[in-house]
């Protein structure tokens, strides 16, 4: 058991650490210049491997990417590099993507909704696509493409269909881990930017027969709200339901299969504070 933290630098570079180990190693990195240097070199070596797996993406992806970027705010972090040199992952935190919903054009909104599909009466505007500037057509084409490529591509940044992976990868994610008697552990990860939290369990003992695990968000006010019923399994990664921005912790309790409105206090399995 020669558990030198430095030994983990390779596994960290390859994202081969468990969430808790990753967190602990990031703590070590902040205080170990030699590991930071080594990590930079290993990252470059891994980048060299990319020569062996290049694949051209589908051509349509380029327009989708550029269009999505054009729709976001400019990055907030135009600060000089040296100003935040100490903070590896937290620097340059972006603003919330501010994005207006695509409102229908004013003219279109006044169209009578119940008009039968046949016999289009007096269109409000001639359908003269030729009058439109070419760039508008290109934008429309790009938007249509994005719709085809898939809403799920679009949403994480826009309408916030957020996955557990998004929360785990969020630059502003904060984590806390609670180890339980018997070696099970539960990690809470919360991203304020995404407004969501994730629970990651390892070796969680099963709920008693006829019962289920229910996740809870603990709010600053002291209130507990349900984060949803947990899937059965010892190693589960679960995106909790509900806005996690004002939460100070999370917990798991044993409840009837349909869940409870409030946690059964005698059956709280674990509470994790952030």
């Amino acid at each position, binding site marked *: 058991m020669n558990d030198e933290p430095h030994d983990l630098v*390779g596994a960290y570079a390859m994202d081969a650490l468990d969430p808790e180990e990753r967190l602990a190693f990031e703590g070590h990195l902040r205080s170990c210049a030699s590991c930071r240097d080594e990590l930079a070199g290993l990252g470059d070596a891994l980048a060299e491997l990319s020569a062996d797996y290049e694949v051209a993406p589908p051509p349509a992806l380029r327009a989708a990417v550029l269009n999505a970027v054009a729709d976001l705010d400019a990055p907030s972090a135009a600060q000089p590099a040296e100003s935040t040199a100490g903070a590896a992952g937290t620097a340059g935190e*972006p603003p919330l993507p501010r994005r207006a919903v695509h409102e229908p054009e004013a003219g279109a909104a006044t169209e009578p909704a119940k008009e039968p599909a046949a016999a289009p009466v007096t269109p409000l505007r001639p359908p003269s696509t030729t009058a439109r500037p070419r760039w508008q057509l290109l934008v429309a084409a790009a938007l249509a493409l994005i719709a085809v490529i898939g809403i799920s591509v679009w949403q994480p940044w826009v309408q916030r269909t957020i996955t557990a992976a998004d929360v785990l990868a969020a630059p502003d994610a904060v984590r806390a881990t609670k180890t339980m008697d018997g070696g099970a552990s539960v990690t809470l990860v919360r991203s304020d930017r995404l407004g969501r939290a994730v629970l990651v369990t390892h070796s969680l003992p099963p709920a008693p027969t006829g019962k289920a695990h229910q996740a809870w968000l603990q709010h600053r006010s002291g209130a507990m709200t349900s984060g949803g019923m947990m899937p059965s399994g010892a*190693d589960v990664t679960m995106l909790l339901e509900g806005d996690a921005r004002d939460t100070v912790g999370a917990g798991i309790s044993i409840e009837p299969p349909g869940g409870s409105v409030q946690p059964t206090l005698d059956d709280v399995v674990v509470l994790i504070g952030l």
Partner: protein
Amino acid sequence: MEVSPVETTTDAVADAVRRCAAGDQQAVATLYDLTAAKVYGLALRVLRNPAQAEEVTQEIYLEAWQNSGAFRPGRGSGLAWLLTITHRRAVDRVRSAQAASRRDTVYGLEALATSPVDPADQAIDTVAAERVRSAMRGLTDLQREALELAYFQGRTHTEVAAELAVPLGTVKTRIRDGLTRLRSVLGGD
């Protein structure tokens, strides 16, 4: 320890990232053109699912645009920075798919396993690729296997140790040594 020289002026990717940080949207197109095949290729290699690889690729450029200010030229190349966030995101997806597949039956890995990417599709026969392959051949079997499982299949080192039936401590050092060796072979010129 040899510290690799900072070649910021020859790192076109880093230059593009810096222009992104300055708010230059054109730079995203440059960044994409310089790196998309590598970003998509890595996502595809890890996820083995073209649709998911496309999603990740799109997310990466959005993240790169928004977080470009976090890039630190002294901490490795621009490409390394971009591929690091790509790999992290792809691996997190694989792991949540694994967690989901435990409850949702077949959706995740088994579906992926039945539609593996044809290696012939993916391998690009270039001088650079041959150089990488030859460097990989210079590793021990254990180093190579550990690297393949961890980096390309998204396994944790604990899982790698179990799969290869070697102690965790051995996996840790083999991964580190293997990468260091690759670095010295590939970074040499």
